[in-house]
Each structure stands twice: as C-alpha cells, then as structure tokens.
C-alpha cells in the first residue's frame, strides 16, 4: 500500500471539494436568507482538513497502483460524505443530529435522494441549493471529475476511473487519454444539465427550481426543493420534461458521447443494452398505466397516463421523484416499481441498481441453458449484439449478482432487527442499495422516522450501491491488506 500517495490525493480532492461550498454562499447572499455562515464554516473545515492531510506528503510523487485506486475511491466517498454533512450539521435552522446530517449528505452524493428533512418549502435557498448540488456532483462521480481536472494523477487515473464507474465492461475508453474521456463525460453531463434547466424553465418552473431540479434529474438523484417533489408543480408539461430527461440520463453516456462526436443517433437503436432498457421501461409503464386505468377508471385519462409513465420511469431509473404517493397505489404496483429499481439504468449512466446490461447477460445465460437442453452438442456463446462476451465478464456478472443478493439479505435482516416491519425494511434497503430514494411503508416519504442504527445501515447501503459493492468489499478482505 502506497500510503503517501493515497493521502496526498485524498488531501487534494478534499481541498477541491471544499470549493463546492462556495456557490451556496453566493445563493445565500443573493436571496438574503441569512444562512451563509454554516457554508463558510463547512468550507473552512473541509479546506483545513484537506490541507492538513495533504501537507505532510505533498512532495510524494509516485504512481497509483491498482490497490491504491480502490482505497482512494472508497476513502474519498466516505470522507466526502462526512465533510459534505458539515454545512447541514452547522445550520442552526435545521438542528440536525450528526447521523441525520451524514445521512442527508450521503444520500445526496450517492444520488439516492432519500431525505430525513421535512418542510423543505420553508428551508433557506442556500441549503436547498446545496442538497441539489451534492447530487449533481455525485451523479457523474467526483472522482471522474477529479480525473478530468487533475492530470497529475497520470496513469493511476485509470485505476480510479475503473474503481468508480459503474457497469461490467470498464476497459472501453472513449478517447485514448483517460483525462480526455473524463472531460468528455463531463461535457455531455453539463450540456444535459443546461438543456434540462432551460426545458424546466420553459415548462413553467422558476429559474431557481429549474436549476435545482435539473441538477437532481440528470444525476438521477431525486432530491427536490419541495416536500411534494415534482408533484408540487402539478403540471403535465413539467412531468413530461422530467420523464424525457430521466430517460436520457439513464442511458450509457458513451452513447451520448458518440452521438455528439459523430452527430448521429443511429447507434442508439443498435445498442443492445439501450434496446433492453427502453423495452424494460416501456413494459413497466404499460403495466402501471393499465393497472391504474383498471382501478381508477377513465375519469382523467391524460393525467393518469402521465402519472403512470412518470412514476414508472422515475422509479425504474432509480431517480425517485414522485408526483403521487405511489406506495398507496393499488394491486402489485408499489412492489413492482420497487422491483424495477433493481434493474436500474444502463451501465455508464448516472443511474443506480444492478444495471440493465447485467440483467441482459443473466437473461442470455438463462436462454443459453434452455438452448443447450434442446441442442446438447451446440456451442453457444453469450452474445451482445454481434459481439461474443468473454466468459470472464459473464463470471463477473454472476459474482456481482450474488454479492448483491447477499448484501441485500444481510441489510434486510439488520433493518428488521432494529424493529422495522418487513415491508418498510425491504423497501428501505432497496431504496438505499439501488440509490433509489423513496420506499414503501414508513419510508414512503422520507427516512426521518427510522432509528439511528437503521439510518447508518441505510448509509452503508447507499455507499455499497454507488460503488457497486466490490470496490468497498475488496477493502475488508485480508488479501487486500497483505503485502
């Protein structure tokens, strides 16, 4: 283990992160909401901590090894979630406990969107903005941002990139240089954010709400500036804008990059993961809308259609915006939606969940077993589109899947051990691990009613989900620490 390098990068990243506490101060002064002080304190604390971590080792110049990459990423998300909580903890108006502040900050950074706050509509603008900004930064991954702006990371950048980016196939780079790849991803991300903001504005939001919701939409986060989430605006047009951008943000960003680079959209239709993703969303939406019509009748067909599609896309992509309290919806719908969040978005997007491509590979493996029963002597490779998938990748998918299930079960038991009922515990773990946000039962509108222990379990779940389990898991193996 290369402690000095890990420490140096950690310090640098922390100092960089402290800068993100400055925009809320500007918002605070602009809206005159008298809550700039916690941000100044948070900024000072984070900067000082980063500086103190960095100072003793600032001369160390070594390349990151593979193992250091895991450690940096895991440490950074943990440390950052904690320091990100500082302004929330310091804010007098909120009077949050340490647990609550960390929960809220981690939920933001991991783009989960579960909240322990109520009365959002009354909160100062600066704090509302800060929560949304956390989601936006977390969406693309702060490490990817760091790779883009810290070319001094050099070769080691790939280790960080691979430890953080979601999806089973991580070796494909968009451009030869890792720095350029990271930059390209951020350009696409930023372009979508701006487009989304303008679209929200045109659909009728104010500029502040448009910016804030654009942040949490493209990040597939789910934080809102209102208790009623997107439902607050009660506008079909805004719902449609949200649907479109959640859908886009759930697609693999390298597809967007190619669309931008070669000015073409043909490759979307050719991508097997995208097709499966679109098909999956469509199926869920049709079932939801159909069931709603069956139970509610056709009194307001247009609004029911939009609500159904909105909730299907929002939950299945793991965003977590709501227009209605879907946990009260009839029949199997609430559980269906929670299950859909296990699929999540595409690999290489900002969405959570297990990712469409993994399900697709698992499905293809199942299909292969069936085909083998019919043709015992056939040689049948697992293929995605025209390319055969390496057995190694398929193995990794199964490994991931089983670890996901184990992590889920353990956390579910732990949650229930804190005294929660099964529906609440199940959905709370799903909402955390899939980076979804809202759950069912007691956690339908927020996690404020949970005990501290349950909240910490949830925080761990969010981290595990964001880092796709293995990055964290590898740190607790003795093998990792052995020299």
């Amino acid at each position, binding site marked *: 283990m290369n402690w000095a390098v890990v420490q140096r990068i950690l310090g640098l990243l922390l100092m960089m992160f402290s800068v993100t506490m400055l925009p809320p101060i500007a918002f605070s002064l602009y809206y005159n909401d008298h809550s700039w002080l916690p941000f100044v304190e948070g900024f000072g604390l984070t900067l000082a901590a980063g500086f103190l971590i960095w100072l003793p080792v600032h001369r160390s110049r070594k390349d990151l090894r*593979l193992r250091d990459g895991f450690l940096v990423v895991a440490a950074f998300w943990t440390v950052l979630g904690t320091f990100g909580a500082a302004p929330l903890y310091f804010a007098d108006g909120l009077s949050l406990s340490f647990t609550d502040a960390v929960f809220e900050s981690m939920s933001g950074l991991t783009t989960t969107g579960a909240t322990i706050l109520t009365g959002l509509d009354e909160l100062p603008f600066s704090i509302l903005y800060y929560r949304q900004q956390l989601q936006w930064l977390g969406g693309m991954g702060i490490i990817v941002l760091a790779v883009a702006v810290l*070319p001094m990371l*050099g*070769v080691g*950048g*790939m280790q960080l990139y691979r430890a953080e980016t979601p999806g089973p196939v991580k*070796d494909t*780079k968009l*451009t*030869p*240089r*890792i*720095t*350029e790849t990271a930059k390209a991803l951020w350009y696409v991300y930023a372009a979508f954010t701006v487009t989304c903001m303008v679209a929200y504005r045109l659909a009728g939001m104010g500029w502040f709400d448009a910016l804030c919701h654009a942040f949490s939409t493209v990040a597939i986060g789910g934080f809102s500036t209102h208790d009623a989430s997107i439902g607050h605006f009660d506008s079909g047009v805004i719902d449609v804008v949200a649907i479109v951008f959640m859908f886009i943000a759930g697609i693999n960003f390298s597809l967007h990059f190619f669309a931008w680079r070669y000015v073409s959209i043909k490759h979307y239709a050719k991508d097997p993961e995208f097709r499966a993703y679109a098909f999956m969303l469509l199926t869920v939406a049709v079932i939801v809308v159909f069931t709603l019509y069956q139970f509610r009748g056709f009194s307001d067909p247009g609004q029911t259609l939009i609500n159904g599609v909105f909730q299907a896309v929002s939950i299945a992509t793991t965003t977590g915006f709501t227009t209605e309290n879907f946990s009260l919806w009839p029949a199997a719908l609430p559980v269906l939606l929670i299950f859909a969040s296990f699929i999540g978005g595409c690999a290489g997007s900002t969405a959570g969940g297990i990712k469409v491509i993994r399900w697709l590979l698992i499905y293809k493996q199942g299909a292969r077993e069936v085909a083998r029963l019919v043709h015992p002597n056939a040689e049948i490779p697992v293929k995605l589109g025209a390319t055969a998938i*390496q057995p190694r990748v398929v193995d990794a998918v199964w490994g991931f899947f089983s670890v996901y299930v184990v992590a889920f079960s353990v956390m579910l038991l732990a949650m229930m051990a804190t005294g929660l009922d099964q529906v609440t515990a199940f959905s709370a773990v799903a909402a955390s691990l899939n980076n979804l946000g809202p759950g069912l039962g007691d956690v339908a509108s927020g996690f404020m009613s949970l005990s501290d222990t349950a909240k910490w379990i949830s925080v761990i779940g969010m981290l595990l989900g964001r880092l796709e389990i293995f990055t964290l898991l590898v740190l607790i193996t003795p093998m990792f620490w052995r020299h």
Partner: protein
Amino acid sequence: MKILILGAGQVGSSAAYHLSREEANEVTVVDMRPDVLRELQDRLDIRTVVGHAAYPDVLERAGASDADIVVALTDADETNMVACQIAYTSFRTPTKIARIRSAEYMNANKLFTQDAIPIDVRISPEQLVCSHIEQLILYPGSSQVLDFADGRVRLVGAKADREGLLVGQRIATLKDHIPNTEGRIAAIYRGGKAMLPKGDTVIQEGDEVFFITDRKDIRVFLSEMRRLEDPVRRVVIAGGGNIGLRLALALEQTNQVKLIERDPVRARHISEQLNKAIVLVGDAADEELLLEENIDNVDVFCALTNSEESNILSSMLAKRLGAHKVMALINRASYVDLVEAGSIDIAISPQQITIGSLLAHVRRGDVVKVHSLRRGAAEAMEAIAHGDKDSSKVVGRQIADIELPKGTAIVAVVRGDKVIIAHHDTVIETDDHVILFMTDRRKIEHLESLFQVDVSFV
C-alpha cells in the same frame, strides 16, 4: 498528436510506452490478442482496440480517420504494408511508418512511393540493432555510438577508466591533450545522475561520458577516456536469427566470425548464405564447445538469440571463460540494469534503439533524428533551425543567448558539409542542423517550441 500503433509485440508495446509518456500524445494500440491489450492498458494511459490491424473497419474503430501518424509494427511485413496502404487510401493519414523486416522488401526502393505502397518511413529493428552492434565493434571501448547528419557527426558514450588520459583532469585541458581535433563532451553520468560539464569539471573513474566529434577523431577521443583497446579481430555470435545472420554478413569480410546456432536446419541455411564466417551447430551455453573454439582469445562475444535469459547466461559464461568483451541482447529494461552492473559489458536493447527512429516523427518542429538514451530518460536529438531572427527563437542568435531548458545543451551544429562543434559564441544560421543533448526528457515540449517557427511572422 494522435498516434495509431498497430501490433502490441515487443516493439509495439515499448513504442506505446514511450509515446504515451508524453502529455501531448494520444495513443491507440491495435492487436488481435485481447489479453495482451488488457495488460497493456492496465499499465499505460492508452486506448486499445482488438482486431486485425489491416482491416478497414478495425482501423476506423481505432480512430484512423483523425490519426496523425500510423505506426505499423505487426510481425508480418505484408500486414504492415497493407495497413499503411489502407490508412493512405481510406483515411488520408499524413505520416505512415511501417516495420519492414525482410531485406527483400527493404532493398526494393521503387516500391515505397505514394502511388505504389505509400509508406513514408520504413524501419527495420533488426537492421538498426545490427548496425548499432557494428558501430560498437568498430569503436571498441564505446558503449553507444549514435549517428547524426548522415553519420558525419557521432555521439559516443564510453565509461571512463583509470587509464584514460583525461581521467582525473579538468575538461578544459582537453584542448592541450589533443590539439588538432574538434569535439566536446556533451554530458557526464556519475552514479546514475546527469551533469552538464563545465570547463573545470573533473572526469572521474567510472563516469559515463558522452562526447561528440567528427567520426575520424573518435578513436583519439576514446583514448582520452579509457585504455585504448585493440581493434576487434575475433567475434563470436551466439544465435543465428535475423540479427545474428545480418551481423555475421556485415562483419565477415573484416573480422574472423564464428556463429553458433542450435538448430541444424537453420545452421545449414545460414552457412549457405555466409562466405567466410564459420557456422557452428551447438548450444551457446555449452562450456565444452566454447572452450574448443578458443573462447579465451575472442575479442567480442555477442549473444543475440531470441531468449534474453539465455543471452544473459551464455554471455556471462563466455566472460568467465575469458572472452574479452561480451554483449547481450536484452529487451527487458529491468534486466539491463541488473546485468550492466555485473559481468556483462554491454546490454543491447533493441527497443531503445528502435524507438528513436519513431520519436523523430512525433516531435513537433523539424526534427531529423532522435536517439533515446538511458532507458528513455535522456535524449539526443538533431533538429533543423528554420526561419529568421524574428520568427525563430534560435536562428541568428549566439548559443549563449538561446533560452535552453535546464539540463539541455547544444553540442554541435552541422552547416552544409561542415561540422561546427558548439561554443557559447557560435551563431545559429537558418537551415543549420542543430544537435542537442537533453538530460531531462520532461523538458522536451519547451525544446520543441524553440525549434518551431512562429507562424505569425511568416
């Protein structure tokens, strides 16, 4: 610069390593073996594409449409030629470099024109390595001999020993030692650290000294650094592969050459091609065989087989049995460090020899030649100065006034046919070939910018 490297073999990987180390380059490597590429991508900041290097769609995927340079380094000459042809026809790639191994293609000169096979630069690592060894044999005592300006000027590296005439003295006294020669010491490596010499620097035993001089004066200069060795007479070459055979062919007229080859069929084949050299069938690490062939009287023993481990072992054995000087072909950089400290006199690294000819085409500014030294940490480079006093940062200026980056020195200037050894008051003229020595490769961008003509003045 966007660079496409075809083939991730030894030369391809080391080219990718050297090129991707420079900030300004974006390197993509194409190969058919996914496992090799994965391993390469773990170490280097490059993009990799799996596929046949000469297929148009593979080249397209690898970004040939906006590549500045295609470097075809696959095992097969034919693949390399077709790949360059396709890069030229379908993608209009400006610079195409290809490895051509077989002498049959290499010698057919009219073949490589824009309307036949459009390859701008042909490199043959075997030939480069072979002529490198030839130079070392021609100038015994030198550890590196590098050509500039078509061989008119040579940069020579040598390890100073106790019997060198200049050792223990200040460099300024060089003029008194050898009054009628032109030359200067470019750099000194002492204990692995580079230093640019001044007049009062004292050369010590064990220093690795790089000096530049006209080719006729090399032997005189060498005698200043170390005991002058007798010209090489007897050479034993271990390994009759491409390099071994070429070297035997080049040396057999002037030297007594024995070549040891393991494979009887191959031995038969090379013996038919050689006229004077003796081909021995056997193992180069066989003590009996070496003794029988009077290894203790051999001036130079060259181990040039494909396996670097056996090269190391057989040359160590030869040294112990009494060969005066042993050289071994070693690819792995870590081995080079290991053995050069020990009993092997010179480690020959084909990668380092080859990479220079690639680097010359990647550099911005009009760079004719680049030699990579000390595992790529240092570089010697020949660049042409263009423009006039206003548009260029070097032309019309005295060397002392040029803002060279730290650790860099101008060592010589070639003007037309004349070789001028650089002094602080030498004035650079336009179209001069300027020869530089760089102890710190990281300053390369600064140096490149010096030799670029400022466009706003043209």
